[in-house]
């Protein structure tokens, strides 16, 4: 046996302390859930029977799955675009020399570090239909009251408002750095060519910050697909399933109904979807993104 091709033996010692938890709590659960999705296990029974694709066939006949899929996409879209566009607009506002810009930045960023559960409870109070602040503001402007988290029409919107509020400062900070990294000379060159402010934004700024946009798109999509805390506090997936995302469906099937077949296939559908989104966006980024 040729030991040399394995490289420095010490390297294996160095990776071990991180590799053990990585194997135990990341790779093994991932492989195990793939295996479970082909069995009829119910959490209690010591026997696991191989059932082939049965769980997947069942899942594709499950209306709740398609409903959750749709809700997840709506939630992801409703989170990713406002957070990215809003974060960019805020960064454009703050990207100049002025007094107190560090304070504005800190205030806008602060919700990001607070516990989602705690701030969601605060928002639950704001959304309170009778005396909550949200309806008081709507009434002040002469608009009627909303049921917020208690109506299937507005529940998802209510959860989205909290999520965007919490995440927008985070994207803003990324965009601020990206904007500061654009060389002044490029803007000057464009100005000499006679480009207007809007033209400079579309043809200089936007292409040059596209790596940041790409990165933020990926991360906010992953986060949106895994949103749980705010849904759990505000709506618990309801009313009438209007905020049941895939993760919520998965959690419900696994830990409340012990329907492991459904839970494992739902979780694999999440993995596959994110994998596909990553692949597609990486493909697009190779062709379209301009690195400096």
């Amino acid at each position: 046996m040729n030991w040399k091709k394995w490289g420095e033996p010490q390297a294996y010692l160095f990776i071990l302390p991180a590799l053990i938890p990585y194997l135990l709590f990341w790779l093994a659960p991932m492989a195990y859930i793939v295996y479970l999705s082909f069995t009829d296990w119910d959490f209690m029974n010591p026997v696991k029977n191989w059932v082939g694709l049965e769980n997947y066939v069942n899942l594709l006949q499950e209306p709740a799955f398609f409903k959750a899929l749709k809700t997840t996409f709506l939630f992801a879209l409703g989170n990713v675009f406002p957070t990215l566009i809003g974060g960019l607009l805020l960064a454009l506002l703050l990207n100049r020399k002025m007094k107190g810009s560090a304070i504005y930045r800190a205030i806008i960023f602060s919700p990001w570090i607070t516990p989602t559960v705690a701030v969601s409870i605060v928002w639950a109070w704001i959304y309170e239909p009778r005396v909550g602040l949200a309806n008081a503001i709507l009434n002040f402007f002469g608009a009627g009251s909303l049921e917020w988290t208690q109506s299937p029409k507005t529940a998802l919107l209510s959860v989205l408002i909290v999520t965007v509020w919490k995440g927008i400062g985070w994207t803003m900070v990324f965009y601020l750095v990206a904007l500061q990294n654009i060389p002044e000379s490029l803007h000057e060159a464009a100005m000499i060519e006679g480009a207007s402010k809007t033209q400079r934004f579309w043809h200089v700024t936007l292409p040059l910050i596209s790596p940041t946009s790409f990165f933020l798109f990926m991360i906010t999509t992953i986060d949106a697909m895994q949103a749980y805390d705010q849904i759990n506090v505000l709506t618990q997936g309801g009313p009438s399933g209007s905020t049941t995302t895939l993760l919520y469906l998965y959690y419900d099937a696994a830990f409340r109904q012990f329907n492991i077949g459904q839970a494992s296939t739902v979780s694999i559908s999440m993995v596959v979807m994110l994998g596909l989104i990553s692949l597609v966006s990486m493909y697009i980024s190779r062709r379209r993104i301009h690195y400096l």
Partner: protein
Amino acid sequence: MLPMNRFFSRMILYVSLVIICIVMVFPFLWMFSSSLKTNDEIWAIPPILWPAEPLWSNFIDAWHSAPFSLYLFNSVFVATAVVVIQLINSSMMAYALSHMKFALARPLMGLIIVSYMLPVSATYLTGYVILAKLGLLDSYSGLILSNTITIFGVFLLRQAFLQIPKEVAEAAKIDGAGHWKILWKIMIPLSSSTLIVMSLLSFIGQYNNYLWPMLITKNPNLYLVSAGLRSFFVEGGAYGMKWPLIMAASTFTIVPLLVLFVVAQKWIIKGVNNAQTVNK
């Protein structure tokens, strides 16, 4: 003197920034003002902005309605332990991946990149089963050990170590330093800012952690603040019957993090920026 329209555009800028900041901060202010109201004031229509006489005793009542000191201790203890372990094991792995030659380096790096893109919550069901088999459910060790891998941290530190010139490590090697010594005496001190940033972000994440710790602990004495607050909201607070107390409890859950943020703002924002290098 400024030209008139420049003056106006500046005014519009400041006014809109102030409005945006008020919107961002208002939930916190509203939480605080609600926590000081009497039960009559909290149900008043239209809502009262600030109570006639702030009822500070709400904080004491809330603090005693549930074991919040225990929840806060659990969160801080678990988060600290996790951060310490993560700092050690991620630096070691990052060092191996950046300054050592071994056959598994490339496949491992590839796996880590893929892991970063996939939803960790997909593993919760089987992670739970594995933790149960290891006998780690309902214990501090389970809460701590199951969170000790940070893919983000490995990325971040690898990036930091790669920026340290190879010559520095080479020179130390010629002087007879081994890998262990190079890591602790050169790499870690030179990357201290990255390590601070990583610790802060990881600490915040663990302190706020909710779903996973809740799944693996049934014993309320092991609740982290989020789970404790949530159970107070549902049971003790009886879903809105005691809003002032709930708001007081939310306040003392959130305030430690806001204080941490004010103190370490520079580092946290810098860390968020660094996160981007993961992508390249």
